[in-house]
């Protein structure tokens, strides 16, 4: 049957299972928008294309399905760039569709022409420029296949205006992907399994390092079985949180720069690290020269280019984590680890006492209190927390106990401020049954808060907790520790966020005291519409513990004991 490129685009998306796209129209993508009225796909109109890319990303992370962003050529396409790079660093499957000027105008600096395939080359898993309608169906099928298979990632398809307008015979079956060089599914050799099993069975002080790969691979059940059978404790990366329930007795919690001191010391004391779907990012290793000096290392990882990149490993199992674990589990033996687990318990020592949660209510509101209260109120329900980047993100990771995979959505690798609100919109669209909370700083919120209008236009029930300390808090913290408290360009003069929300027609509250936190959270949960709560928290609060950049993992800046900080100023 003969169809236009625009019609083929939407039909291919439908056949790939797409129900929602996030986009913004413009000249070069208008033919596609014109054909949208005949499609079953729901289009979410964003307020800035960066929001569209983050929404597609949030959609993908919440559901595991490919998220789709649509933009026009030129500035529309370039506005996607931050969102694409965010998805690339966190292995999130999104497909970005951009309009391009007519194929005969390419290279002429035509109005709104930009080389978006050139620009996004290093931040996409793959990208395409489609200049002929005959190539469109196959290209789109390849794009979705590449985005979701292997180590997932963003794929961009740039379609010229004439390719959208002209017609050809459309046959889905005929348009099969042709990717002779693409090899997403590797598997380890038998002898590599044997070497790994031998190391595991001989280890006396093993630790599992659990990362995002466990969630992407859907290996939560297999990880749990491995942990319970082998009695090996688990430290998690930021993006791994939720892959093993936080309440599990063998879950140590987050490792790395803002991980608890005993977690990092456990890693430093270990004789075997079993890295599952993580990539030894500098934020989890600290100084590589002193990292886990006595430990052998096993690395289970789907991407061969990650092997021996940061940390030299003894055994590498390259493959999908779930498949690798299914292969290994029948051969995992139960070993008594009580000595090692007791040792770790002792490492915890007085850390619990130093916890800010144990402070008496001094009348000051701490971000940690807000987040911990939010966790207590929402625990046991299907809740998705979407955070931005900075201090609030680390407090969320410390004080919100994630029990389920995909219950935390956050920008890890790229550390993109402005991610939270649009990503939460994507998450809510993907999983309307889940209660979605945005936890965002006052700095990052102002980067993408235009998307409040999208929340309202789409009638989405999203709760927004602005952790408002009047600073770019994490940068201020670094200035406090490493730049002699020279607070250059970090104090913020903010609008009244509650009144701002009201202007959008969003219900809002301002909270300044601890006893108001729980009622405000309860009120937000009971409301049927979107709610914004402006939590005015302690201004010069600090995320503890902390491994300074370049320091060894066990050299942590600990919480002051007792914590007084600025509370008694």
């Amino acid at each position, binding site marked *: 049957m003969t169809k236009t490129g625009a019609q083929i685009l939407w039909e291919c998306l439908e056949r790939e299972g797409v129900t929602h796209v996030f986009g913004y129209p413009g000249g070069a993508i208008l033919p596609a928008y014109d054909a949208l009225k005949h499609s079953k796909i729901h289009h979410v109109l964003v307020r800035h294309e960066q929001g569209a890319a983050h929404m597609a990303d949030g959609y993908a992370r919440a559901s595991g399905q490919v998220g789709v962003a649509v933009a026009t050529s030129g500035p529309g396409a370039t506005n996607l760039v931050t969102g694409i790079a965010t998805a690339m660093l966190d292995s999130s499957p999104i497909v970005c569709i951009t309009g391009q000027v007519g194929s005969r105008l390419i290279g002429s600096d035509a109005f709104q022409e930009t080389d978006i395939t050139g620009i996004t*080359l290093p931040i996409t898993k793959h990208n395409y420029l489609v200049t002929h309608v005959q190539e469109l169906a196959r290209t789109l099928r390849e794009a979705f296949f590449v985005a979701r298979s292997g180590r997932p990632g963003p794929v961009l398809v740039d379609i010229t205006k004439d390719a959208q307008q002209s017609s050809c015979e459309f046959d889905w079956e005929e348009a099969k992907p042709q990717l002779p*060089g693409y090899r997403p599914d590797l598997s*380890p050799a038998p002898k590599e399994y044997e070497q790994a099993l031998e190391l595991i069975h001989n280890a006396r002080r093993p630790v599992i390092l659990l990362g995002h790969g466990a969630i992407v691979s859907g290996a939560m059940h297999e990880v749990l079985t491995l942990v319970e059978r082998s009695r090996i404790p688990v430290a998690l990366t930021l993006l791994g949180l939720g892959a093993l329930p936080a309440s599990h007795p063998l879950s140590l919690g987050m490792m790395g720069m803002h991980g608890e001191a005993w977690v990092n010391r456990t890693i430093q004391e270990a004789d075997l690290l079993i890295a599952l779907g993580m990539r030894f990012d500098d934020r989890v290793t600290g100084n590589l020269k002193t990292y886990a000096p006595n430990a052998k290392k096993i690395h289970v990882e789907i991407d061969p280019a990650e092997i021996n990149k940061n940390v030299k490993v003894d055994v*590498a199992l390259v493959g999908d984590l779930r498949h690798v674990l299914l292969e290994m589990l029948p051969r995992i033996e139960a070993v008594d680890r009580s000595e090692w687990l007791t040792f770790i318990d002792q490492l915890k020592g007085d850390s619990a006492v130093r916890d800010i949660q144990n402070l008496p209510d001094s009348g000051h509101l701490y971000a940690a209190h807000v987040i911990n209260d939010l966790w207590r109120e929402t625990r046991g329900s299907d809740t998705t927390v979407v955070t931005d980047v900075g201090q609030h993100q680390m407090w969320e990771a410390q004080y919100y106990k994630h029990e389920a995979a995909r219950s935390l959505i956050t920008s890890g690798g790229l550390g993109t401020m402005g991610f939270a609100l649009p990503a939460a919109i994507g998450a809510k669209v993907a999983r309307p049954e889940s209660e979605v909370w945005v936890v965002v700083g006052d700095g990052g919120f102002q980067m993408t808060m235009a998307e409040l209008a999208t929340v309202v236009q789409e009638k989405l029930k999203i709760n927004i907790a602005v952790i408002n300390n009047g600073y770019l808090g994490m940068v201020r913290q670094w200035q406090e520790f490493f730049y002699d408290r020279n607070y250059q360009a970090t104090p913020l003069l903010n609008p009244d966020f509650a009144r701002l929300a009201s202007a959008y027609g969003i219900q809002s509250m301002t909270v300044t005291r601890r006893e108001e936190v729980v009622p405000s959270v309860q009120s937000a949960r009971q409301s049927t519409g979107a709610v914004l709560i402006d939590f005015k928290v302690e201004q010069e609060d600090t995320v503890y513990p902390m491994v300074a950049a370049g320091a060894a993992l066990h050299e942590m800046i600990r919480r002051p004991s007792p914590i007084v900080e600025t509370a008694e100023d």
Partner: protein
Amino acid sequence: MLNTFVVYVENKPGVLTRVASLFRRRAFNIDSLTVGRTEKPEVSRMTITVDADRDQARRIEAHLYKLVNVLLVENITTQAAIVRDLAMIKVAATHEARSHVLELAGVFRARVVDVAPESLIIEITGDEDKIDGLLEVLRPYGVLEMVRTGIVAMRRGGKTSSVASSANSLTQDAADDDVQQSV
């Protein structure tokens, strides 16, 4: 050390940029890169030489494989291979120097491909050392201009590195090798 990679890629627009961009992005310095057609129109072949240690070379190989358009990667650094570079050297050759220059060209089995009153163009094929050697002895006469193709390489013997009938199976095999070596 200098590593030599033979890389088969799909013959499509932009593939050379993808490969070159990869080296730039991962901060590896390309010493030489050549690309040309193969016996199959849909496949191009690159010979890339890069200064890298063993670990870096393995990661370069793994990163190349991550490019969707890359069909096959072989690091032939330690294998017996024929390696050739081609150079054209325009050398000043006055009446009195001319016979000396021709003699030197003869010693290196180079060919004179252009003769002008004051200069000659000498064409030489060989490995890089041989060309460097000729260049060294011609320098005193005055090298006016030089162009080199960069090296192309092919393994000796019957074993081929062609992405023949089934590109999929070949790349998969190569991938397994790669993974095993990487440990």
